[in-house]
């Protein structure tokens, strides 16, 4: 080996050989990675199916809550907007407010308290304004998102994204 490498012709040949070996290894590596990807892709998609279904559900623009108009003043209705829980509050002043019920602190479901007329999170004591969703006290960093109450009619209440 060491004697042969002294010859210039052999050096050229050997480096050529090295190149083909490198090319082969690179091709084998790419092929192997493609093979593994071909196995992993269906498995990932299979496991991620519910997540995609949930994504489709969150793309909902509008929900109609049947018979929700019958709800008395000073009461709350829990419903699902897409996949997440939400609140529909019929205030004592006859206004209708809909907002997400997911606390912006750590994702607990909040509740409307009629007596205090506020939204409270039992997990860490966060408090929100029941008309605007603004975070009033406690750990929540952001306000609750408001939905738009499009109409309150004979058949129900229509709520859409703001």
């Amino acid at each position: 080996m060491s004697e042969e490498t002294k010859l210039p012709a052999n050096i050229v040949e050997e480096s050529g050989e090295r190149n083909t070996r490198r090319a082969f290894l690179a091709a084998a590596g790419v092929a192997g990675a493609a093979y593994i990807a071909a196995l992993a892709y269906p498995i990932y998609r299979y496991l991620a199916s519910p997540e995609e279904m949930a994504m489709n559900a969150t793309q909902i623009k509008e929900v109609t809550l049947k018979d929700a108009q019958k709800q008395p003043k000073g009461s709350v209705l829990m419903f699902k907007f897409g996949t997440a829980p939400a609140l529909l509050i019929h205030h004592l002043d006859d206004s209708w407010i809909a907002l997400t019920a997911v606390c912006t602190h750590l994702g607990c479901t909040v509740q409307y308290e009629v007596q205090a007329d506020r939204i409270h999170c039992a997990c860490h004591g966060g408090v929100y304004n029941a008309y605007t969703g603004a975070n009033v006290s406690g750990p929540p960093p952001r306000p609750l998102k408001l939905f738009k109450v499009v109409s309150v009619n004979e058949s129900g209440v229509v709520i859409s994204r703001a």
Partner: protein
Amino acid sequence: MTAKRIYDWVDERLGLSELVAFARHKTVPVHSQSFWYYWGGISLFFFLVQCFTGVLLLVYYRPGAEAYESVRQITFVMHFGWLIRSAHAWSASLMIFSVFTHMFSVFFMKAYRKPREFGWLSGLALLGLALGFGFSGYLLPMDELSYFATKVGLEIPSSIPWIGAIAANLLRGGPDVGEFTVQRFFALHVVVLPAIFLPLLGFHLWLVQRHGNATPPREEAKPAAERKTMPFFPNFMRKDLAMWLISLNILALLASVFPWSLGKPYDPLAPAPLGIHPEWYFMSPFEMLKLVGMVFSSKYAALGEAVGIALFTTGIVLWVLIPFYDNTRESGQRGRAANYFGLLVIFALLFTTIVGYWTIR
């Protein structure tokens, strides 16, 4: 340098170098029949595929009343669910096939002889469990086909006097196949059978390490100097892995080109569909019982069934006990009687399977 230090640290505590030394000294005999050594490994590979795809199916499968609906969801709603399910079903068949191949190669190489009797016995127990996996797994989708296959399959043990009916009722969870059956078959399939299978498989593999590969008598007759071997690591292992890759490709091809179908949901009031038949690996015993039953007139049908089961059981007992009556290990002892027995068994299995499929229509 750091890698070496980490290796030394782990080695000092776990004794990795002993393992490496063991692997280096392990050899595999090389001769004209070496090809058959791959089949145990291939069986193991398909078992691993079963574990993997089985866990994936477990993610969405719900036993009991919702069984069919959840399998429908896996097959038609979840992305690539059809492929995972198809791979599980195909791999089950391929695993049974490779286990049978492995068993017959062991049989004809006389690899069950001293000191490998336990290897033979544990292997047969593993085959029995694998068939149990197949039978219990087949019901889980709860479609028409699986319903009737299980119904018929459980009728067979119920003809055994005294204990048969009790056993069948226990397996079914009542007199009929239904939600209770699928729930307990599920428990068998994913908890009970694996809990027995895995330690037994460990024992079986440990025995292979302990005794090494058996050589056929003709090879054993040669003087030690003439026998060729190759190192297990990395030579044989590389070939083993190549076989695994081929197996995976065959499985992927079968599973994607011939996806496993899902029939109509089972209906206990519906008549059995035409062309109903057991899975191929249960076809032979099914047909044997049918053939023996045909020999007897309808007046003695019950007797015929009992005789069929008795014959079949005798065959299995003879098969299991082969290491104890074909045990001569003197070099060159071929044990012709055992060979003829093996050929007879292969012939009977093939013949009854072919007849079974022939008479479906």
